[in-house]
């Protein structure tokens, strides 16, 4: 049995999820490690799964098109595959510079 198949069989895998700025405030915490279903394929799938967890998440992701994501420190679109990402971040559009 391959590693991927093993993970799929196990049903979940742990990922670290980090939040910034008003996404962090609405979710109510800066980071958490969650066991996410191994069959979540994309960033958008994870967002839908998070929204089912409670009101804070629903508020944070009320307008999904606005919230940005990064997989292991690299910007990712909603359609991006989660792959083996260990750290997934959600945040508003950047206002640095």
């Amino acid at each position, binding site marked *: 049995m391959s590693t991927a198949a093993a993970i799929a069989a196990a049903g979940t895998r742990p990922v670290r999820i980090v939040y910034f*700025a008003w996404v962090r405030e609405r979710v109510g915490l800066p980071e958490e490690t969650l066991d996410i279903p191994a069959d979540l394929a994309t960033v958008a799938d994870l967002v839908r799964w998070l929204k089912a967890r409670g009101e804070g998440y629903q508020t944070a992701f009320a307008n999904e098109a606005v919230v940005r994501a990064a997989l292991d420190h*690299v*910007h990712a679109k909603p359609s991006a595959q989660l792959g083996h990402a260990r750290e997934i*971040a959600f*945040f*508003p559009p950047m*206002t640095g*510079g």
Partner: protein
Amino acid sequence: MTPLIRIQHEDFSLQDEIDALSAGRADIGAVVSFAGLCRDENGTLAGLELEHYPGMAEAEIGRVAAEAAARWPLMGLVAIHRYGLIRPGDQIVLVLAASAHRRAAFEAADFMMDYLKTRAPFWKREHRIDGTLGGWVEAKGEDDDAAQRWEQAP
């Protein structure tokens, strides 16, 4: 040419950065720098609080810098971004591009700033002089448009 990227709370000195870049060499003819300062548009700002994503901030600015280095013949590239509470009038960000000639230095610094604005994971929030916490600064569509200027035709 290895870009120098620093994410720090401390202030910086443009002259120190230029001197460090050009020390012991005489092939640099042009250094263009951009310094971004904290503006107080209404006279109500105590400061801007800059939140950032440690690790990704360095990585993302590094990717932008690598793109700039691939597009222009640079002899030095510095990007410093501060975080934490910044007072009105204080410096927030510095980009410095060095080349033999001025065109490359101007374009690379301009490019770096446009991409830093839209890609570097920093968020600004207002602290008001009356002690209240203002809102998070909203991203500007014009920043995305500015970054778009650099996209090459397919």
